[in-house]
């Protein structure tokens, strides 16, 4: 019996933590007001006590209501008392019953303050979009606030997504939807937390007419949702917070042909070719054909043709920083203005490649800040940009012509975001958009140490991929001087005979070589000289400072840093101590650190090679990764000791 009670108690405890709180506007408990700290996250500035949403789609209109209650715990949480609501304006969109209250405990009694008209503001944000703003009065640390509103949208099918997770913790978040059978939605649940309640049943809702009174009812709820906190090395927060998203698949009105909004991935291809891609328009642009022929005249190897066209498009069109997966303008106009969106530029590239008889197919993608593509939702709205799939060096290669400073084999890092949709003339294919060519930074030092501790000699570096891009960016935009200032920041260094190679040849490594005198990397103390041998690109601190990690680690692309020092020791000195060679690897070929130190006849060689091959690491691998970098940091700080040879 006693055991049973204990069990029951334990059970009820876990359950009670997930029980729906009483939700009624204006009915508040003193406990909510007396609360001073949220026990599950004592650092929270505010906590959402409940956040309740409901959407009803009858076919005649879409109604969305939201009712939220927030406890303010610190001064930083006061901002949550300003409420902003966006909705469609005019004779189709309405905001109703926008009301809000603050509650305070005053001498043990609950003081309630309602929002009056003067605290509400409306503005037309841009044409068609209205914004209502409200500052809830009498809010201070300790207050509880509550607001509620209803938005109605006539004629349109709009089902709002629901975010269960926010920047502050939430004790209870729920969303109910009633969707007429006339509309079919694909539902997807994103994020790292799953709902505690996930129900679905048939129901009735407001009538379009009797035939479609049938509704599908869904109910999702999540209890004790932790605050979303940013971590280094993650992609867009949209890929992490727990959200339920809807995409309209079809509309089936009685006695009408069903309107398929989203049927299948196969269908997307046709629609893309017909509408968005504006294929016909591009095809009839003779001037592109002429240009393509002109550019490839006399070239026989397809790779040479590809490079010629790629360079032409890249050098002649500036990216406007807008993404699109179709063309946004007439190609002629794009070429005249010499600028365009990602779709404009890459589809011009694609057409010209085809005119030159090269393979070229559109690869639809979603950029990192636009979220990850879900294969289970066949919807074009998941994409926001397009790349070109062609052949290069005998293999399928994805290319992009929006970035003037990237070589052909490197895609802008914002494009590296999981799967892309390759639309072919006879079908479609999923392609992983990732960067396989490694970005390499290598620094080669050939130096001679003099007795005063100065190191003289040659510095040579070679940068490829994204490293080359950023080097070129600084040199071409800010000048070599600024670039050198950045490269040698904080160093006591004298540069002579500076040479920069391949500044304009982005397909080649950016090479720099200088004659240098470096001070400050050795210290003489009597008979001994101490040398700090990692002079450039030192991993001085661990990028993973925090002990805990919640989300996977995303390095975006593979990279490699190779440092080599050959140092001649001054006459009369011998090596007393040399760091030990060391190798450390990340599991499953994830990465490698190889540190070598050797000496031979007064010549010391130090090498450090740091490779990150794998782009994604799981949370479970985080301690490994952190320790891996600990080793790199430790080795990079080690010293060489020279001692005077006693005669």
């Amino acid at each position: 019996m006693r055991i049973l009670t204990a069990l029951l108690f334990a059970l009820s405890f876990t359950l009670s933590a997930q029980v729906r709180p009483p939700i009624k506007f204006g009915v508040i408990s003193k406990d909510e007001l007396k609360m001073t700290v949220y026990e599950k996250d004592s650092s929270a500035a505010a906590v959402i006590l409940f956040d309740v949403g409901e959407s009803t789609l009858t076919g005649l209109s879409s109604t969305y209501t939201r009712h939220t209650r927030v406890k303010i715990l610190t001064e930083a949480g006061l901002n949550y008392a300003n409420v902003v609501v966006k909705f469609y304006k005019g004779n189709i969109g309405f905001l109703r019953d926008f009301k809000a209250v603050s509650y305070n405990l005053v001498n043990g009694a609950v003081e309630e303050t309602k929002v009056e008209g003067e605290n509400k503001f409306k503005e037309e944000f841009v044409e068609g979009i209205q914004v209502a703003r409200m500052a809830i009065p009498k809010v201070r640390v300790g207050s509880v606030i509550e607001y509620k509103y209803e938005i109605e949208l006539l004629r349109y099918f709009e089902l709002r997504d629901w975010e269960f997770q926010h920047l502050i913790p939430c004790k209870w978040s729920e969303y109910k939807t009633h969707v007429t059978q006339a509309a079919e939605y694909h539902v997807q649940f994103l994020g790292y937390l799953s709902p505690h309640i996930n129900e679905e049943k048939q129901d009735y809702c407001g009538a379009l007419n009797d035939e479609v009174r049938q509704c599908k009812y869904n109910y999702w709820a999540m209890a004790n949702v932790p605050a979303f906190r940013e971590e280094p090395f993650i992609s867009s927060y949209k890929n992490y917070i727990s959200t339920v998203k809807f995409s309209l698949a079809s509309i089936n009105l009685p006695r009408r042909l069903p309107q398929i909004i989203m049927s299948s991935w196969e269908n997307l291809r046709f629609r893309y070719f017909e509408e968005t891609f504006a294929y016909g328009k591009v095809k009839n642009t003779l001037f592109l054909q002429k240009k393509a022929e002109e550019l490839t005249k006399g070239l026989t190897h397809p790779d040479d043709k590809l490079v010629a066209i790629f360079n032409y498009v890249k050098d002649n069109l500036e990216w406007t920083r807008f993404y699109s997966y179709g063309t946004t303008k007439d190609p002629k106009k794009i070429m005249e203005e010499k600028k365009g969106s990602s779709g404009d530029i890459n589809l011009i590239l694609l057409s010209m490649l085809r005119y030159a008889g090269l393979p070229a197919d559109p690869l639809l993608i979603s950029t990192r800040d636009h979220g990850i593509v879900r294969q289970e939702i066949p919807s074009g709205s998941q994409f926001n940009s397009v790349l070109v799939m062609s052949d290069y060096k005998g293999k399928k290669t994805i290319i992009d012509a929006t970035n003037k400073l990237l070589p052909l084999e490197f895609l802008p890092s914002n494009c590296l975001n999981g799967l892309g949709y390759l639309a072919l003339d006879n079908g479609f294919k999923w392609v992983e958009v990732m960067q396989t060519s490694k970005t390499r930074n290598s620094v080669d030092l050939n130096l001679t140490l003099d007795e005063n501790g100065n190191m003289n000699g040659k510095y040579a570096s070679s940068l490829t991929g994204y490293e080359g891009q950023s080097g070129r960016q600084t040199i071409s935009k800010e000048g070599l001087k600024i670039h050198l200032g950045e490269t040698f920041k904080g160093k006591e260094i004298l540069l002579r005979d500076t040479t920069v190679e391949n500044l304009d040849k982005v397909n080649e490594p950016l090479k720099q070589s200088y004659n240098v005198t470096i001070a400050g990397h050795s210290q003489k103390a009597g008979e001994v000289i101490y040398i700090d041998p990692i002079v450039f690109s030192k991993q001085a601190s661990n990028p993973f400072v925090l002990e805990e990690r919640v989300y996977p680690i995303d390095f975006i692309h593979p990279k490699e840093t190779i440092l080599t020092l050959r140092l001649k020791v001054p006459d009369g000195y011998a090596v007393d101590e040399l760091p030990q060679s060391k190798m450390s690897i990340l599991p499953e070929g994830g990465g490698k650190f190889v540190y070598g130190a050797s000496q031979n006849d007064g010549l010391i060689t130090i090498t450090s090679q740091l490779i990150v091959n794998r782009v994604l690491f799981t949370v479970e691998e985080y301690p490994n990764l952190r320790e891996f970098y600990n080793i790199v940091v430790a080795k990079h700080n080690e010293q060489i000791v020279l001692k005077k040879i006693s005669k």
Partner: protein
Amino acid sequence: MRRSIILFAFLTISWVGYSQNYNVATLPETLKKNANVIVRERNEKFIILAKDRATHSVHEVFTILNEKGKRYATKVLLYSPLQKITKFKGTVYDANGKEIRHLKSDDIYDQSAISGFSLYEDNRLKAAELAQGVYPYTAEFEYETEYKYLFYIPRFSLVHDEKVAVEKSRYTIQSPKKAMARYKLLNHNQQPIESIQNDIVTREWNFDNTPAFREESFSAELVDHVPGMLFGPTEFSFENYTGTMDSWANFGTWISSLSNDRKILPIKTKNEIEKITSGLPIEDKIKTVYEYLQSKTRYVSIQIGIGGFQPFSASVVDESGYGDCKALSNYTVSLLAAAGVKANYVLIQAGSDTNKMITDFPSSQFNHAVVAVPNGKDTLWLECTSQTNPFGYMGTFTGDRKALMITDGGAKVVHTPRYSENQNVQSRIGYVDLDVTGGAKATVITTYSGLQYEKEKLNFVLNSPDEQKKWIYRNTHVPNFDINNFSFANNKERIPSAIVSMDLYAKNYATSSGKRLFLNPNLMNRSTFLPGAIDHRTTPVITENGFVEVDTLHFKLPDGIYPEFIPPATEIKSVFGEYENSYHFDQGVLLYIRRIKIHKGVFPAESYTELINFYNRVGKSDQAKIVFLSKT
């Protein structure tokens, strides 16, 4: 025949009037040198029509030489019910001066323009872009705004950015004799060409062929070097509030007139203030009122029409519990009055990189309001928009600058508190227990006082517990460490201070190589800053903040090792500051003391090399390592 002559004459005139030769090739090298943008011509006109009406028109042509000048191809114009855009045109030309396209109404984007810090404003914006993909090209804009009030006349500055050269720029201000605009020349001596016609006074300035300016680090803001003019009306009217601006006293009188009837508190609040402050000494009364304000209100910015200058009334703030800087300051003045304390509303230019108040030219130069409470020789300063600001503290946002105190008789220029370098102290004491492998357990206690209270946004983090651990990680430059324990203490004194304590374990505090251990004793506060070299520096060197930092670190060494090398103590003295460090080894304990003092001040341009030299030497001294040898 006659007809063709007329036509010819007309053509000639129009050619002179619109000399649209924007061919880039003809630009002189002197202007192109170091420039991103060249102002080909600019014609700005401000016309005061009456004391409550004005128009502002600009015709400007920019040749954009490279990507860094791109934003000059975008124009954003603000408007509101009181300020209407009556003309907005734009054309873009290629390098040969041939028109590419001109703006159509579809190209003009319209949006509400509510500043990030505001809940609501009645401002909107229209924006248009003429950017091209190839450089150079030329963008031309023509726009006109009608003002249904008069108060503020935009300041003129020949350029607003470095690397912008000017071929031709003209500024004209026109006003009726009886509502004359006033002006003040800034950074130049060019007197205007003046003409009077029908009681209308026109003043005109021309600035031609000015090469691009260069911004230099440790220097005053660009507007402090560049030729410009400050303007102000004499008589003016803003939504039926009429005033004169020929003296600060009159300016103050007008500001007072906006809030004279807005200081009445509900009787309940009045009684409560009387009750909680009665019998207290004056400073405690002020403090009690300030804390009452902080616990009861929050900052919400709402700006509509004259509401940009007129505070909400005290009773509205009392009722809603929020307001902007004006409303909350006016409310504070009212609360203090209820406590029997006389306080003044103060207008100020807030922010750390902001225009300085030009004290000898009464005009609207402010963006913020605070409260000053004269208390004998002392004056107490209150920032009323923050719930966490320490009582009496004016930090980098509003401290050490001129401001306008509104008084009964008008207004008076005052100076807000300045904290001396000896008050801005960061002092750190650390006990480090080192083991043979280089690992260390450390207890570190750091006190940040005066302006150091704001170091790396510490003042915000004090009130955001969820940011505190991250703050420590961000600002502790020890490689690879775990925090075992930490705490933040907040002493909200007149000169506030914060104490950050932490226990940490660092696996590689010192680097071990074979039989040696290398220790950089200054791992916590290394100066890595190096001012960039500048050829032919022209502007005075300005250091913004004066402060002192002291680090006292005790290292307890493991048995069996002894120092092989201890760097010599360093002392560096310069006009910019002083630095010293020292090492004492005694009975297994190494004591490291580092002290740096940076002076606030203005120094001649030539001294810049000394500044570089100073930071170089400090950086080098901070790198020094102690080497320990194992006895075995």
